[in-house]
């Protein structure tokens, strides 16, 4: 293997680990930590572009850690889906780092905000790139520990209450995941995902295989906040610092979705009737409960949190319909790309509104369009994109998924998806009307002068909104990217061959 390739796949894990470690050594100097946050995530962004380029050219990039050959050592595998996810993680990480410079207070920085940010990114990227199921568990835990600490940064009562539910349900999910790995190892005697996929095809005991598949289904369902396992998300996501909220909203649940995509295309047979039925029901109910939950909320970040759940449903719908329509998985991947950028941006906007007005409650807000028309426009772009208005990225994402649903004759799912899209629009216009359009409430001292320099916040938000617009206007290249990664996912033998090669 040539020199740049081995480096390309290691860098997305190595850079955040290294900048995190340096950030701990530079604990005393605020300036060093802030500089490292921007440089580290910036380099990560470059490295992830490099990786995506390499994967686009070669199809798969595989690296055996420590040169231990594949089924015995731990491998890092980057296919297109993994490379796309790493790129999205880097974009979100970079945007959050810039945004944090002006929103995270010195007190929070002293509790280790920046090292934890790097650690979280390392965990997320590790989970995307690993080709070993136990290693996936380890990266999940790295990510979880960092997210626990970020969640309670500041130590307010709401954060503690949210964190207890977040920690409990995520630990339960980890225990289920570990049990599933144990049973799987007992069945096939290997941990390499490609090797598992090859060996599981020869196992006759379908009962036990189904049990293991359902354990993975539940474990990743909890991480992805899918119905009926989502309760930890609306209880906790609106409590931490808003930059942390944005990072979580963009990335964490999507790691669960990625794991579902990976495990149910590579290892388990998705056209199995039980798995298929479970996924279809999960997709429909996740969309519906999420959006109905959001309709009942009147707090900016809580509304957005519930919308994360309903959007997860669309991604799972893409996965669920994969055996029936070749377009479905493409739609699911397109949806992930669109969702991570838009969702993170909406949270960042809510944070900026908080900086300007000092509240997240819709009834205390208002009149922002009169004061800050550009912020209103930026919000509209992201909100309409989330709801699926053309020509923004959300329209194409929904369009592909729904088109796949029609091809698959899954009429109930299609109907649900359309209704949910309409309700999303309702939620977004509710925020628009309350925060931007209606007159500012007079009774309280709401027009708090903006603290500090907000230019960095505007720049981040504008850049992400522009990205949504670009994905919408130039949907073709993104669609091709999603299509090619879906093709890779649908043909697991290519993954197996890339990892195990002639040793098979």
């Amino acid at each position, binding site marked *: 293997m*040539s*020199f740049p390739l081995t*480096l390309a796949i290691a860098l997305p894990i190595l850079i955040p680990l290294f900048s995190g470690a340096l950030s*701990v050594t530079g604990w005393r100097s605020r300036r060093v930590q802030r500089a490292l946050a921007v440089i580290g995530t910036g380099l990560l962004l470059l490295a992830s572009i490099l990786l995506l380029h390499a994967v686009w050219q070669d199809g798969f990039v595989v690296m055996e850690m420590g*040169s231990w050959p594949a089924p015995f050592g731990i491998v890092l595998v980057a296919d297109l889906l993994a490379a796309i996810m790493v790129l999205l993680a880097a974009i979100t990480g970079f945007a959050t780092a810039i945004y944090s410079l002006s929103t995270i207070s010195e007190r929070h920085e002293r509790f280790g905000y920046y090292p934890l940010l790097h650690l979280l990114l390392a965990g997320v990227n590790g989970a995307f790139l690993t080709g070993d199921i136990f290693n996936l568990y380890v990266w999940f835990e790295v990510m979880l520990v960092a997210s626990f600490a970020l969640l309670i940064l500041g130590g307010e009562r709401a954060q503690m209450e949210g964190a207890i539910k977040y920690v409990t349900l995520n630990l339960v999910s980890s225990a289920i995941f570990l049990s599933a790995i144990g049973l799987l190892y007992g069945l096939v005697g290997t941990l390499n995902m490609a090797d598992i996929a090859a060996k599981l095809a020869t196992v006759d005991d379908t009962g036990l295989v189904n049990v293991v598949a359902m354990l993975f289904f539940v474990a990743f369902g909890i991480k992805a906040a899918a119905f009926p396992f989502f309760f930890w998300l609306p209880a906790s996501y609106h409590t931490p610092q808003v930059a942390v909220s944005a990072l979580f909203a963009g990335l964490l649940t999507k790691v669960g979705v990625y794991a579902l995509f990976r495990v149910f295309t590579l290892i388990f047979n998705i056209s199995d009737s039980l798995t298929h039925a479970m996924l279809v029901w999960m997709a429909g109910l996740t969309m519906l409960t999420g959006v109905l939950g959001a309709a009942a909320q009147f707090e900016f970040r809580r509304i957005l949190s519930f919308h994360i759940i309903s959007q997860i449903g669309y991604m799972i719908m893409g996965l669920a319909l994969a055996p029936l329509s070749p377009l479905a998985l493409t739609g699911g991947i397109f949806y992930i790309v669109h969702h991570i950028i838009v969702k993170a941006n909406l949270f960042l906007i809510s944070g900026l509104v908080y900086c300007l007005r000092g509240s997240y409650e819709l009834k205390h807000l208002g009149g922002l369009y009169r004061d800050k028309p550009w912020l209103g426009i930026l919000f509209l772009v992201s909100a309409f994109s989330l709801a699926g208005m053309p020509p923004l990225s959300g329209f194409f994402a929904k369009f592909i998924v729904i088109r796949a649903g029609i091809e698959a004759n899954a009429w109930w799912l299609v109907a649900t998806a359309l209704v949910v899209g309409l309700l999303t629009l309702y939620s977004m216009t509710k925020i628009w009307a309350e925060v931007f359009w209606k007159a500012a409430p007079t009774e309280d001292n709401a027009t708090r002068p903006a603290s500090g320099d907000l230019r960095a916040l505007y720049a981040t938000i504008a850049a992400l909104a522009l990205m949504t617009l670009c994905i919408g206007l130039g949907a073709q290249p993104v669609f091709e990217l999603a299509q090619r990664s879906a093709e890779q996912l649908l043909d697991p033998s290519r993954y197996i061959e890339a990892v195990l090669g002639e040793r098979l």
Partner: protein
Amino acid sequence: MNQQSLILRTTGRFLLPLLLLFSLFLLLRGHNEPGGGFIGGLVAAAAVSLHLFVMGTNAARRVLRLTPRDLIGWGLTTGVLSAVPSTLLGEAFFTALWFEITLPLLGELKLGTPLFFDLGVYMVVVGSVLTIVLNLAEES
């Protein structure tokens, strides 16, 4: 910390250097036999904790010279860096590289990147255990 037994105070003084030496021995032994950075770090942390019980927290901090947090940081940095040289030579990430050095008095010495990784683990373990112990000791 004022009512100490004479035995503890006397032995503590001798045990600190002995235990630290033993932890280094474990660290180096991990190359081919049971041992390694994790267990060596635990022994070193135990040694410093013993010193803490005998002489108090300030003395323990003086023994460390660096704060535990810096130890964690530098340990992590060393560990991550030890994975890098192999990629520069075109090998996979984390591949072990060994060099043989002949020293004038000691004879042949085998040095490798896994040793640096172990050293990193050693420092992280010492740092994180002592962060907890020092925090608890200073709180009470």
